[in-house]
């Protein structure tokens, strides 16, 4: 028993889907339990942060870390688990690239707090109550972790050994990783565990590389079941996204949204998608191109759906040049430090 490698799982800024994905291994989870000694997994076993802090450095063999880093608590656990783990794996799109929580990088912390606690139509908050870093109650002082302005990927906070992308990673991808860990046949450090081909290569739809005059949103047309969605004007990120999911979304008529991230050697997933999508537009003048683009609302949201924090620009500008944040009020600065 004592010889079994020790496994830890943790969720930082996460939706819980990655935890479910691990449980989704079904009976194979028993193989994991047989192969590893699970020493830390807050979702499933009763354990406290102090218990991990007490572990010896390097005493965890493998840590599967899901979720993005958006506050002090996430970062603190990332540092602790990095120190305690021999192999740290960024598990899921959030840990790999910031993903859905990372979309917050399209706003500032102040804008978010303003909307969430004061402006949103379902909020009534005349007293302007919002979370504080420190609150005094009878029992003593309560502290909340500082909420960052910029969401980061795991590797922007601590060194990461391997990446397992996907939102969440598919069972077959997790199995691949577990197998590599069990057999010790790991790729070079820093690698993505998985395939290095595009979703298109796994997609059964027929691609003719058509040029298109307009984009459609999923609710606007019923796509032909056999033809490439992009050829039919439906945004699909499969052209520049890593395979591994067996083209799960296009298989059911929904364009890929890019959760498996870029292929090897591509740093900025969004820029690559931008190039690929631009190349299918059937227009030659700036005006005609603009007209086509009118049918593709929120392009940055499409291209950076999962990898905005892990991109070259990482977030929306907070203050450029002379526009310095005069406009940014600071209602929520207390939670921010």
């Amino acid at each position, binding site marked *: 028993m004592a010889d079994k490698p020790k496994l830890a799982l943790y969720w930082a800024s996460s939706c819980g889907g990655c935890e479910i994905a691990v449980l989704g291994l079904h009976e194979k989870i028993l193989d994991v339990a047989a192969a590893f000694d699970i020493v830390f997994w807050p979702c499933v076993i009763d354990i406290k942060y102090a218990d991990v802090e007490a572990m010896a450095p390097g005493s965890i063999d493998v840590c599967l870390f899901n979720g993005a880093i958006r506050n002090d608590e996430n970062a603190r656990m990332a*540092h602790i688990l*990095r120190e305690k783990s*021999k192999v740290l794996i960024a598990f899921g799109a959030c840990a790999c690239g910031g993903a859905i929580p990372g979309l917050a990088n399209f706003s500032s912390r102040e804008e978010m707090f303003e909307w969430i606690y004061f402006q949103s139509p379902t909020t009534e908050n005349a007293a302007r109550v919002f979370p504080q870093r420190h609150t005094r109650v009878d029992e003593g002082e309560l502290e909340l972790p500082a909420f960052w302005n910029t969401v980061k990927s795991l590797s922007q*906070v601590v060194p990461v050994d391997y990446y397992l992308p996907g939102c969440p990673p598919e069972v077959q991808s997790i199995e691949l990783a577990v197998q590599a860990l069990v057999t010790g046949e790991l790729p070079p450090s820093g690698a993505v565990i998985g395939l290095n081909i595009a979703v298109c290569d796994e997609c059964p739809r027929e691609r003719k590389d058509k040029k298109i005059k307009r984009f459609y949103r999923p609710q606007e047309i019923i796509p032909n079941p056999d033809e490439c969605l992009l050829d039919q004007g439906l945004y699909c990120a499969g052209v520049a996204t890593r395979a591994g999911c067996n083209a799960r979304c296009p298989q059911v008529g929904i364009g890929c949204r890019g959760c498996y991230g870029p292929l090897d050697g591509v740093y900025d997933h969004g*820029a690559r998608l931008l190039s690929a999508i*631009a190349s299918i537009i059937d227009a030659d003048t700036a005006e005609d*191109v603009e007209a086509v683009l009118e049918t593709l609302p929120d392009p940055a949201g499409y291209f950076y759906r999962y990898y905005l924090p892990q991109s070259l620009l990482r977030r929306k*500008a907070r203050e450029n*040049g*002379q526009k310095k944040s005069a406009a940014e009020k600071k209602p929520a600065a207390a939670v921010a430090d």
Partner: protein
Amino acid sequence: MSEAEKFNPVIVGFLCNWCSYRAADLAGTSRMGYPATLRDIRIMCTGRLDPTFVLRALQGGADGVLIMGCHPGQCHYQEGNYKAIRRFALLKRVLQQLGLEEERVQLHWASAAQGLLFAETVSRMTRQIQALGPLDWKHNWPNEEPFMLLQPYLHEEVAHGR
């Protein structure tokens, strides 16, 4: 403000080998005056311009990016500048969503004979960027985690040493 005190922007220029790069040469050899703000990079065609180059330039400290190529219809590879038009239009929208001012990334045409047009384009863009001020993109992510690094990571010895 005197000319000398004005902020001196860094503009990265991606110039097509067959036209705008030669226009720049012509502007130089004909001693046309224009501000020394452009750091030009020669590319074989604007169709070669990967949007990543533009993002990399902005992230690396450029205050603006100027892309220049052959007039539409005159690309030496037939289609290259049409590709550039499509990419640029999409890139412009994405950059706007990321909070960049429109003037910071521009696409213009100049043939090998249009040295003056080239010089004027650089001068105009320089004035526009001066009015906007520095981009200072790095300022967008000050180190936010006030957190202790625990001990130096075992990572290196343990995970990679085997």
